[in-house]
């Protein structure tokens, strides 16, 4: 369904491009040997290079290069065998060198695509314009002193991948799906942890609007550093409506950088960025062109994991899952792996159902990731085995599952301990049924006379007599036979 905003003068569509800054997973920074760990003591993860000391020189981290190439391959993008590091010159308190080492007209990765899985089961490909490597800046802290801003350079020089989409996105929802999918791919590849709260994945959104049916690209505004998927979606919607209001009133939009304020749900112009920027890019003379050989790229390609799209297709094809279920399962690599362990040698649909409905339900409620699941994949599989071999009824299985969640014990042990084994001995069930029939001849007569509803009463009594352990299917069959008119 197309996302159309109603304005006073007509219908509008929104045109969105996203620039994502993804922190490269690496031990050391992009051009120095200082560590990258989050949350360390101020300036404790800073080398003289990161601090922009006189005479210090950058040397590129091989792993960061590999991570960028890997990400490019994961986005099915063109890998540029020769790319160039350029200096982006500007003054800012958290930019110690007075320039950021980035890539400009020759990035390491060229065009690629990200496939969005739309809620209706269809897919939509969004173009990736480029991916380049660059240094992160440090951190300014404004609330530690009335007249001063404090500077911590721990983050300065950490490797970032800037991933720029084409202006292909048409709704806040698509922007959200794009971010989630990109995050998923990055996490599969292990090239970025995708943690938006800690800032290891940050997003700038370029937003413009145009009348429905038009192909023009109107003036866009860049909304900086929005730190959650939900806020990105809210910021886009707000910004689009702001544009429409301006156009409806006969005004024009100025190209500018804006900041989203989540508390007020509004964007405002960043005055500090208003001064005309002139970054004076030029190739960094301290670094030579980055040349990749075929063997380097081939090796990374051979090491690529199965990515979400391929995994999803396989789940649908091999396991017979619905596209929706497959989507849910593959969004995180660990979830998919958990599912596959549970499904191995078992009914995959039942496994998917248990993982999605029961396990994910519990994890969501507890705010836990799959790695912290109180129930292991093997134990959940064992539970499904007990269900399959009729040791447990499905009601009992759910009961056992809850105990597993609470205690972390294996299902076999729980069944043993609590004597929860379902009764499948026909003789035992028959004895119980016979006893009930003997004690309630009137009810037997009624049911035989046609009062079918009473079957439920008999089932209940029999379950009660067997402490709920009677195999429901066997019991039903027995009752049907014995109470037949």
């Amino acid at each position, binding site marked *: 369904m197309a996302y159309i905003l109603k304005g006073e003068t007509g219908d509008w569509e929104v045109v969105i491009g996203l620039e994502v800054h993804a922190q490269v997973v690496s031990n050391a920074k992009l051009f120095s040997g200082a560590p990258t760990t989050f949350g360390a003591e101020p300036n404790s993860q800073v*080398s003289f290079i990161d601090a922009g000391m006189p005479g210090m020189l950058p040397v590129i981290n091989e792993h960061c290069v590999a991570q960028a190439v890997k990400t490019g391959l994961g986005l099915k993008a063109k890998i540029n065998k020769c790319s160039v590091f350029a200096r982006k010159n500007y003054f800012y308190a958290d930019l110690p060198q007075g320039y950021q080492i980035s890539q400009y007209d020759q990035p390491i990765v060229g065009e690629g695509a990200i496939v969005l899985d739309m809620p209706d089961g269809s897919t939509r490909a969004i173009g990736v314009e480029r991916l380049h490597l660059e240094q992160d800046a440090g951190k300014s802290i404004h609330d530690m002193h009335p007249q001063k801003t404090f500077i911590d350079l721990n983050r300065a020089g950490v490797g970032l991948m800037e991933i720029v989409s084409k202006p292909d996105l048409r709704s806040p929802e698509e922007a959200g799906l794009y971010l989630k999918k990109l995050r998923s791919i990055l996490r599969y590849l292990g090239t970025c942890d995708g943690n938006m709260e800690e800032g290891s994945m940050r997003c700038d959104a370029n937003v413009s609007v145009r009348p429905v049916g038009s192909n023009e690209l109107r003036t866009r505004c860049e909304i900086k550093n929005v730190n959650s998927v939900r806020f990105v979606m809210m910021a886009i919607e707000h910004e689009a409506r702001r544009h429409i209001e301006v156009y409806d009133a006969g005004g024009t939009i100025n190209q500018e950088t804006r900041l989203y304020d989540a508390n007020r749900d509004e964007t405002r112009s960043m005055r500090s960025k208003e001064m005309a920027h002139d970054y004076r890019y030029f190739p960094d003379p301290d670094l030579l*062109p980055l040349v990749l050989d075929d063997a380097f790229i081939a090796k990374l390609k051979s090491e690529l994991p199965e990515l979400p799209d391929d995994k999803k297709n396989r789940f649908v094809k091999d396991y017979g899952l619905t596209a929706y279920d497959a989507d849910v399962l593959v969004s995180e690599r660990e979830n998919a792996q958990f599912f596959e362990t549970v499904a191995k040698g078992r009914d995959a649909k039942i496994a998917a159902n248990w993982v999605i409905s029961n396990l994910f339900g519990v994890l969501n409620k507890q705010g836990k990731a799959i790695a912290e699941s109180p129930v292991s994949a093997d134990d959940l599989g064992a539970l499904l085995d007990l269900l399959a071999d009729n040791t447990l009824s499905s009601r009992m299985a759910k009961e056992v599952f809850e105990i597993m969640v609470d205690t972390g014990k294996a299902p076999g042990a729980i069944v043993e301990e609590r004597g929860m084994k379902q009764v499948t001995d026909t003789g035992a069930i028959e004895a119980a049924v016979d006893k009930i029939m003997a004690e309630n001849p009137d009810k037997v007569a009624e049911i035989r006379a046609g009062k079918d509803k009473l079957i439920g009463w008999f089932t209940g009594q029999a379950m009660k007599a067997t402490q709920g352990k009677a195999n429901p299917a066997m019991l039903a069959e027995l009752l049907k036979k014995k109470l037949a008119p």
Partner: protein
Amino acid sequence: MSLDKATVRRIATLARIEVPEADLEPLAGELSGILGWIEQLQEVDTSAVAPMTGGTDVKLPWRADVANDGGMAEAVTANAPDAQGAFFTVPKVVE
């Protein structure tokens, strides 16, 4: 190529060098002189030439991904004109 005062003011701002208003005019003259002299490059035909990058023919070396630096906040901030604890400071920035 001759620079006017406004251009000198703009590049001085870009370079973050305060230039007193009275100095703009003479500076514009000096810089224009240098640029005028540089202008002779335009007569060289470079249509079939790739620009030189860097000063050398060596291959860009790569460093292993080993965290073996940092852990010296004291040394990093030792020369700072106004360090506060382990932080550098600047006049308050208002976003």
